[in-house]
């Protein structure tokens, strides 16, 4: 809990400092405008979903580097199936794409557990492999959904309660997913087993947890949630270049999770932290843009903020340890 407090303080601190700086400089605060809030919440939703998926794998002590390429492959497949030629119905395509997503994760899980390969290696190969498949499938041509599929598009571009409302639909989906994931991880025995497995796999196995099964399920869930994110991101951008669509997204997802207090060694972390971590990264990119800090500095700001955040986290944890 203490970790989440520290992170929330950091998030609020960044926003307050940036806003007051902007206010002192220009006399108004664009960051707090409704329009900006609507944009920002959309991006937090889209990228937050990827971080939620990633959290499952990171809690087991693994990592999924293939997220960006999986996003590209699934997004392009969806666009191909829906919009090319006659086109299939979304009722067929959406379950199909999500099933494929889960199968990809299942495959990663099997390689990690049964074949005893390292998660880094398995998913690194995936990063190349799925990107390549996406390029083959599309023949390197940009894909999009055209202007069609208003209802499906609403999931990625719509707002609640009305079209002029504050809450973007992707953000609401992210919220619902986060609640589900939090319930699973923090309230069910399976969730506790997952943390136990991440902390000490041997010990978990000896105390009766079916570690291999659980691990495979974690990878499948990660890819499944990534699949949801892929569909939403693809529908939101609506112009998917096979070579670069989604590249780097795995790193944003991982950054959100790590910033949110999950250790890459596994066994620790909580969903609230992941939500705030993912939000913090989007807030930073948004601020760089809104405050018209030169684009060149953006990565410096993000890299610096993550480093600072994790460092702060470490200090907090040590203090807590010393006090206990």
């Amino acid at each position, binding site marked *: 809990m203490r970790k989440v407090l520290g992170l929330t303080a950091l998030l609020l601190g960044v926003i307050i400092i940036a806003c007051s700086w902007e206010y002192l400089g220009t006399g108004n605060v664009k960051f707090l405008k409704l329009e900006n809030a609507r944009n920002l919440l959309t991006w937090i939703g889209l990228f937050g979903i990827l971080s939620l998926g990633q959290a499952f794998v990171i809690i087991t002590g693994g990592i999924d580097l293939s997220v960006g390429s999986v996003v590209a492959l699934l997004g392009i497949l969806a666009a191909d199936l829906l919009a090319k030629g006659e086109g299939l119905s979304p009722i067929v395509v959406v379950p199909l794409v999500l099933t494929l997503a889960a199968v990809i994760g299942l495959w990663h899980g099997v390689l990690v557990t049964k074949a005893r390969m390292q998660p880094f290696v398995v998913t690194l190969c995936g990063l190349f492999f799925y990107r390549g498949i996406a390029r083959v499938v599309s023949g390197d041509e940009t894909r999009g959904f055209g202007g069609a599929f208003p209802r499906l598009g609403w999931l990625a571009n719509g707002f609640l309660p009305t079209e002029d409302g504050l809450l973007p639909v992707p953000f609401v989906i992210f919220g619902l997913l986060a609640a589900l994931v939090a319930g699973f991880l923090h309230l069910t025995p399976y969730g506790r087993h997952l943390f136990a497995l991440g902390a000490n796999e041997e010990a978990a196995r000896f105390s009766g947890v079916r570690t291999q099964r659980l691990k495979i399920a974690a990878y499948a869930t990660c890819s499944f949630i990534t699949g949801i994110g892929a569909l939403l991101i693809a529908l*939101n951008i609506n112009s998917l270049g096979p070579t670069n669509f989604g590249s780097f997204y795995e790193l944003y997802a991982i950054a959100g999770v790590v910033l949110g207090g999950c250790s890459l060694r596994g066994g620790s972390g909580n969903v609230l932290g992941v939500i705030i971590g993912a939000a913090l990264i989007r807030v930073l990119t948004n601020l760089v843009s809104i405050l018209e800090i030169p684009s060149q500095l953006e990565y410096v700001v993000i890299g610096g903020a993550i480093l600072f955040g994790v460092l702060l986290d470490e200090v907090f944890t040590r203090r807590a340890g010393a006090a206990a």
Partner: protein
Amino acid sequence: MITFLIGLLLASVLVGCAGPEQAAGPHEGAPEPAAEHIKVAFVTNNASDFWQIAKAGTEKAREELGCEVAFRIPPTGTAQEQQQIVQDLVTLGVAGIAISPKDPENQTAMLNKAAESVKLITQDSDAPNSDRLCYIGTDNYQAGVAAGELLNKTLPNGGKIMLFVGTLDAQNAQDRKKGIEDTLADTNIEIVDTRTDETDRLKAKENAQNALVTHPDLACLVGLWSYNGPAILSGVRASGKLGQVKIVCFDEEDETLQGVKDGHISGTIVQQPFEFGYQSVKLLVALAEGDASQVPENKQIIVPVKTITKENVDAFWARLKEQTGKS
């Protein structure tokens, strides 16, 4: 066949390890005068729709001349990949290479090395200090000027505009920007900022949306690279400002053309990649046959840009589909 493949593999491994010195060997002693046996290569700088159109141009030239064309796409579009591709092509023994150098200045040595053993021309992006025989492509400064003129027409009363591009270190981005700036220098159109997105399309959309928040009085958004057009359109649509904010962009992605057709985009400046492909192959084959008469004095063949607006978008799009064979 298998022996050939193994040989090929060995050759590329050798090139990879031993560096460019040994790259030239295998194609000596095979003089083949007729066009049917001439093999030329076309090397792009990344993978995009743009190059698919150029590919259609190379196909047409191939059918007309009966030569062979190797069309090579560096997967992630880096200079290092281009170097490897060029070295492999030289090893394969192609007669000529038309390349769009990613980083002309730093690739000059590599290009010169290749020019020693094959007929080398540049297309799309020039390397004027290299030993290339000719350049075929757009004058991106002129393309910028064309965009500037379109902006003048779109915003007769002036106003604030913002530019969007993938990266500003690319020569074509700089040239286009300069062309726009020079054309707008004495007008009351003001360029307030240029934002980059490192070729991430979501970021490109995000940049457009942020711009509308930061500068609510923006009159026009200008996208310098091909995907910037669709990204801006999508961002303006998401912000609910379609029709209130003008858009001017470059190149001919489907979404862009649809936007022009619907009246959401004022116009787009297009190059003619089909001509890049078609003319490059024709010129390379002529050069390989020893005919250098097509190369002009200044060693530059400029393919003019076109301005596509609502008036001519239908005709342009129809012709594009015919060239690329897309329905």
